[in-house]
């Protein structure tokens, strides 16, 4: 039983890594219906910017918030310059553009910061001995990432459900023409969606970097699982992204411990596909109706 609890706890902390990037993916999907393959690379790139800031001897938190600001501008810039022209093109084109951005950012980072992994500092609150909760032992950075994921989710929830801007963003995503008719600046809302998503991605990158080390390829593995998590939870649901990420992490750990450590990923994905067969739009996704 103790082993089980420990495995669940470890799974939750792996899962929170997936969850936080899945949140960023969901944010863009919700507002623009684009699956952003460059999400991980954008997060990696902004984390490198934070690393440079810290190297110029800026205090951690100054670098942190400066990076969030830069990430926001980067996200808005990406939407305005390269996503806006393909707004009305077939959806695959937008995906290909994000793949182009993926390659571009990856090789730029390799060019500027080189390939060898770098240590990234974690904020002082995360340092110290692992915490013991009942029979389970969890490291502080993992708890930090977990709490941050929950905090970001709550912030997004409040933004979308309690503010006028959030309402406008939801409207713009749901029905473009009608939103324009009631005076919502749809273009601005889409750019805002990309900006916010880049901010969440940057936060994810800076939280992950201390545990998985900073390198141009750091996000590629995580991104695939983040996609899986977002799809499991439902691509349009922030709560789903968190739940999906945590479930995926726990599944992977339990499958590795109790079934066969050599096929842990396989088991996790088989479960995801089984869930999708019952609920094709994910656990928390809205079922849609089509009119012919």
């Amino acid at each position: 039983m103790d082993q089980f609890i420990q495995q669940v706890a470890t799974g939750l902390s792996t899962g929170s890594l997936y969850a936080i990037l899945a949140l960023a993916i969901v944010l863009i999907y919700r507002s623009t219906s684009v699956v952003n393959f460059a999400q991980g690379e954008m997060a990696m790139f902004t984390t490198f910017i934070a690393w440079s800031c810290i190297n110029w001897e800026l205090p951690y938190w100054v670098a942190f918030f400066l990076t969030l600001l830069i990430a926001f501008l980067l996200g808005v810039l990406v939407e305005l310059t390269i996503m806006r022209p393909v707004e009305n093109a077939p959806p695959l084109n937008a995906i290909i553009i994000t793949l182009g951005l993926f390659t571009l950012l990856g090789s730029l980072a390799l060019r500027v910061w080189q390939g060898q992994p770098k240590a990234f500092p974690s904020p002082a609150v995360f340092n110290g001995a692992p915490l013991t909760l009942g029979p389970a032992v969890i490291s502080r950075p993992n708890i930090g990432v977990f709490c941050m994921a929950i905090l970001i989710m709550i912030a997004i929830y409040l933004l979308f459900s309690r503010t006028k801007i959030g309402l406008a963003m939801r409207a713009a995503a749901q029905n473009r023409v009608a939103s324009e008719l009631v005076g919502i600046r749809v273009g601005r809302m889409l750019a805002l969606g990309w900006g916010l998503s880049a901010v969440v991605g940057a936060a994810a990158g800076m939280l992950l970097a201390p545990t998985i080390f900073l390198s141009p390829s750091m996000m590629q593995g995580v991104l695939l699982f983040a996609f899986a998590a977002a799809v499991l939870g439902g691509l349009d649901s922030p709560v789903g992204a968190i739940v999906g990420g945590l479930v995926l992490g726990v599944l992977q750990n339990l499958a590795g411990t109790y079934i066969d450590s050599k096929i842990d990923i396989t088991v996790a994905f088989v479960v995801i596909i089984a869930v999708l067969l019952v609920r094709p739009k994910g656990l928390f996704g809205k079922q849609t109706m089509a009119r012919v």
Partner: protein
Amino acid sequence: MLDVLRNRRFIFLALALVLLAVFPYLHTLPFFESFIDSYRTFQGMRFALWLIILMGLNLLIGYSGQISLGHAAFVSIGAYIAAILMTEYSVPVFAAVLIGGLLTGCIGFLIGVPALRLSGPYLAIATLAMVIVLPQILKHDLIDQWTGGVMGISLDLPHVPGSLKDRATDDQWLYYVCMVPAIIMTAMAWSITRSRIGRAFIAIRDSDIGAQQMGVNVSLYKMTAFGLSALYAGTGGALYVYTLAYLGPAEFDINLSLTMLVMIVLGGLGSIAGTVFAAIIMTMRIDLTDWIAGIIPAGERLGIDTTRGALFGILLIISMIFTPRGVAGNIQKMKEENQGEKIRELISRLRSRFRQKRDDV
């Protein structure tokens, strides 16, 4: 007979076939040797392989409208089946390729079943799972006596059969081994897309509910699309492994899946000619970025190795913005608009305006 010769498309096709037939020997001819070397024969072989593999993907995505990011997994499965047949059971290559392709096709057909309920990004990620999961399965203890686990499979590089030894090099032999099936399968794809099956695919792509109302068996055709696409990928993979000395579980990975998707969109979705362009770009993509890095002023200084990826990314973004329907779609559009007429009209208008100004002065 003369009527056939007047058909421009027929002449073009015949010329292309003749070119493909003599291509491996071009670099030995006096005039052509100045700009073609024997490496192009190797590239021609790769082009044939990509043509088969990408044709399958375009049948699935471009014609039936179902997105798959798992195509590399089918290529890998076909390659493994053929490699095991050739090394363990010394099956001749033609039989190994045929069995590899057909078995992969069956697997693809079955994978079409869970795909029936999913669409869009959900289907994309579910198929992506295949590529992520496959290496773990290939490495597993239960089957590693055949797949070689992490070590993979070592193969003998193929050689020209004895009777042809003084007529062809190994590369030239491989070129024909790959090009002949590629041409046959392209012709097959052409006729499929113009048959009842092809029309059903297109109907499903445009609206699956609409297709159902018209009496199309949507489930059957969706699974058929997956099966056909896997058949092409498996055949391509089986031929591919014949040209390799080593096959490992990560040979065909997620990056390849994504690159293939990019290529068919660049070439032109839902078009046979588009797939040919896609295969050309896939084969030449490194030559292409190197060439561009060579002609832009800062290319040298930035270092080609690191700029290659950046250039490729920029090219992707630019081409999606300016030619959203790919090379084939763009040619089609130019034909429709009759660009030549337009340019002539523009020139004459400019000329008359110029003349007017001169008169004013």
